[in-house]
Structures are given as C-alpha cells and as structure tokens.
C-alpha cells in the first residue's frame, strides 16, 4: 500500500512539474472542436455524442501510452531504476500507483471536452443513462491502466519505443472504434478490434449518451473489465520477466 501511495504521489509531482506531460489536455479541446464541427457541418446532430466521446478516449489512451509507457524507461534513463529495484517496497505496487495518477490526469480530459462542447458549440453531454456512463468510465479507466502497465513493461524490451509511441495512436483509434463503431469496418478487421477493449468501451460510452436502450450492457461491460484484467495480468507477467532478466543480465543501466 505504501508503495502504491508513494508511486501515486511521485507521478503527480512529476506530471505537475512539467507542462509537456499534460500535452493531451491541450489538444483535447482542439479535437473536440474538430469533431463537433465535422458532425454539425454535416447536419448530423445525432452524432454529437460520438464526437464528444472520441477525444475523451483519445486523451486517456495518450496518457496510458506515452506517460505510462515511459514509466520504466524514463527511470532507467535517469539512472534511477536500479535503485528503485533495491528498495524494500515492491516495485509493482509503485508502478500501479504511478499508473493510477496518470489515469487521474487523463480523466481531466472528460471535463475539458464537456466544457469545450458547452462553451464553443453550446453542446453538452447528454446524460441519458448516467449509471451506465459512470460504470463504463470506471471500467474503461481500469482497462486503460492495465494497458499502461503492459506498455510500461514492453517499452523496456524494445529499443524503438519512441517510434511505437508515435505509431500506436491512430491505428488504435481506428481499430478501437474510437469515433466510428467497428461495425462499419471491413469484416476481416472485426476480430482484431474485438480484442481491443476500446471498441467495447467506445460503443458503451456512445450508447449511454443516446436515448435508446443499451443492448446487453452487462455483457459488454464485462468484456471491458475482462480485457482490462487480461492486460494487467500480461503487464504484470512481462514486468516480472523483464525485471528478472535485467537482474541476471545486468542490463539495468542502459538500453
């Protein structure tokens, strides 16, 4: 528990100390404007909820990918990793705390999007199914956190983490149905998309903002949670593997 809190506090301080970590919070309003402008210009006011939820997901994803992914490699680069491993507190709990802080910041995106929608276009978030919305958001953040852990562990293994960060945004937005539901994508992509929790989350988020009844809510929510749990499990396993390997090969200090 101590490790979790220590990590939480650390990451909050790190993020607050440098504006560049908050990058997605600067672009979220702009994307909100872009998406809302597109749907309104096309006369599709029924798609406004879609336009609002897309930047929320994009912001969370960016935080998980970039801030989360670089958790361990950043420490390694700063020469801190070895000594963090030598500390009595479990390394995994510190990572979880840091990921939690990252997700908390990511969630600010939700309020930004809401605010910009209201201020610029007079479009609010329609809380048609508030309970379902809240549950979906919580489950989504859980799954995002799990993904962040996977990224944190994987980035240590690859030399090209930087290129991956750049490439892992829009492909995932397409496959994850962040704006356009995956049902519209070609048939052969669908199986791939259904493994990405975002596709389920995005559908549920959009659904909870529309008046119609949400079909099979609990089943689909369950998928988000399941995929999130799988991410955590994979992340934890890869992390343990990576750390053990580093202890044995001695490759802690440099990439």
């Amino acid at each position: 528990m101590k490790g979790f809190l220590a990590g939480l506090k650390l990451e909050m301080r790190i993020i607050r100390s440098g504006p560049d970590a908050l990058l997605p919070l600067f672009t979220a309003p702009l994307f909100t404007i872009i998406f809302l402008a597109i749907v309104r210009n096309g006369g599709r006011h029924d798609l406004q909820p879609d336009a609002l939820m897309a930047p929320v997901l994009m912001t969370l994803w960016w935080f998980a990918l970039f801030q989360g992914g670089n958790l361990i490699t950043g420490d390694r680069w700063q020469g801190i990793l070895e000594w963090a491993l030598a500390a009595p507190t479990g390394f995994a709990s510190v990572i979880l705390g840091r990921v939690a802080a990252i997700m908390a910041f990511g969630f600010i995106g939700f309020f930004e999007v809401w605010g910009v929608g209201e201020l610029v276009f007079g479009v609010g978030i329609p809380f048609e199914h508030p309970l379902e919305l809240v549950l979906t958001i919580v489950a989504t953040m859980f799954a995002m956190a799990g993904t962040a852990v996977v990224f944190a562990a994987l980035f240590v293994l690859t030399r090209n983490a930087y290129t991956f960060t750049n490439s892992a945004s829009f492909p995932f937005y397409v496959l994850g149905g962040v704006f356009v539901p995956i049902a519209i994508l070609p048939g052969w992509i669908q199986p791939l998309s259904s493994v990405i929790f975002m596709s389920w989350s995005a559908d549920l988020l959009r659904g909870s903002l529309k008046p119609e009844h949400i079909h099979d809510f609990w089943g689909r929510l369950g998928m988000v949670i399941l995929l999130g749990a799988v991410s955590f499990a994979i992340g934890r396993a890869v992390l343990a593997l990576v750390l053990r390997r580093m202890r044995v090969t001695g490759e802690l200090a440099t990439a």
Partner: protein
Amino acid sequence: MPGPAVAVEEVTRVFEPRRKRDARVVALDRVSLEIPQGEIHGLLGPNGAGKTTLVKILSTVLVPTSGRARVLGHDVVEEAREVRPIIGIVFGGERGLYWRLTGRQNLEYWGALYRLSGGETRRRAQQLLERVGLLDKADERVEQYSRGMKQRLHLARGLVGDAKVLFLDEPTTGMDPLAAREFRNLIGELKGEGRTILLATHDMVEAENVCNRVTLIDRGTILATESPRSLGRVISRFQRIDVEGADQELLTRLRTLPGVQAISETDGSARIEVAEEGATGAVLKLLVDAGVTSVKTSLPSLEEVYVHLIGDRGLEI
C-alpha cells in the same frame, strides 16, 4: 548481533555479450571478502575493476553468476527481500535523481519506498537535508543543483532508511576538494554511529584517510587487503618531484641522495622519482637551498601503488 556485516564467498560475475562477436566480460572472478560490523571498508581499484559490480550484487540489484554473498546474515539472492530494508546505497554522479522534483520531494519519495510513514518521511527528510547541508536548497529542483549538491543528496537518500550497512560507490567523484573533505567527515560521523560502510573508490588518498581497512581490486580479482597505514606508506614512499631550471650539477648531486631512484629529463625540466620515506624532504631541501623554487610534487598513480604493494607482497611470499 555477532557475525560479519558483509560476507562475500567466491563470487563470480560474468557478462555475456549481446552480439556474438563481442567478448564476454568477467567482471568479478571468485571474489571473497568479509567486513565486520562497524568497519569502514575501502574497495580500491581503477575504473572497470569490478567495484560497482560488487556493490550492485550486494545491493540485490544484480545476481552473481556463482558464489554467495550475505549482508547481515541474509543471502542477497535468496533473501533479497530481507536485505533491502537494511541497506543504504549511495553512489556518485549526475544520474539517479528525479531532476524535475525538488531535493525534498526526491527524499520523501525514497523515504516512502523505505516504508516510512508520511510524517516520518517528512521528518527524516528534514533531518537529512540539514545533516548534509542542503536545507536552503531543499525546495529547488534537482536539475539546478551543482554536482556536489547532487552528491550530498545521494548521501541523504542512502541514509533515508537509517540503514545499518551502507554501500558508497565513488561518492566523491567530481567533487571539489573542500566538498569532498566535508563529505568524508560525514562518513566518519556515520561510522561513529555504528554503521558498516563499504566505500568503493579509485581515490587512494580518500581510501587511506577514511577507511579502517582497504581491499585492492583489479580486473575482477582481489589483490590484497591492507591497512590504510601500509597504503599510506606506499603512497608517500613513491612520490615524484617535477623540477624546472635545475642545472646538471644540481641533478647529479640529487642523484646521490639516498632514496632517489631515478631522474629523467625533458627540455629543461626534470622528474625525480623517490623510493623511500623521507627522501622527498631531503630532495626538496636541496632544491630550495640551491635556489630552485619551480617545484611540484605528486603522488604515484594507483597502478604504481599496486605494483609496489603487490610486488612487495610477492617478495614476502
């Protein structure tokens, strides 16, 4: 609690190459060492000797390829969890701190990692900042600290868990002499508190001044364990004096002095090597009496010390 603070038995550490064509590196080769509780033990060696590797193994960050090591009775591999809370690690250099956070924030983070409660963390951080003389800079970002300040923060961080056993890896590298001296005083204080310290360094003078015993290591092998006095004797025995403007007559007279081993000349300057305690004094006196004042003395290099020490030892055996 009796028993040594640190016990290293035949530890070997080999690094396998990443690519086929690189060589494998034997960083440590059957190293054995014992440090009783309360001792400041120096680990003296040039860069690449294996000092940092040994420190990493003892701090549970690296696994030995073979052999065992124990800290206060706990095996560093099998019982890493028990070892971690009782050790403190300090190393020199620029890296190892969150540069965007303040000194205080860094300390509080490590305090939390060493299982201190919130209040304790703040108190301990305050105490340590005061102790290492960083209180007035405590709330500035580490990225603005000078080298010496970072090093002091490293020491504070090493002490945050109030460890009984401390590993210091080249803590005074790059420090100016004044700062280094203050640092050494601090280490002396720590010893007075009953802590055991392993100090890895390539600075002989530091090793001589601070340690109870010094182990010499080179290329992964332990060469000898000496008392600082013998070390100091070697250091002062094999000094050299560089002179400008001494004429041939003077140099010939110098050659006849007892203890003067060799004189080499280049372009108007001469280097006088001595091999006996006290010889330096006689040489200097002669030079000054002759009116030559452009004089510089220097100590032998670590390699030379090794050669002399080990060479002597070789003769003894």
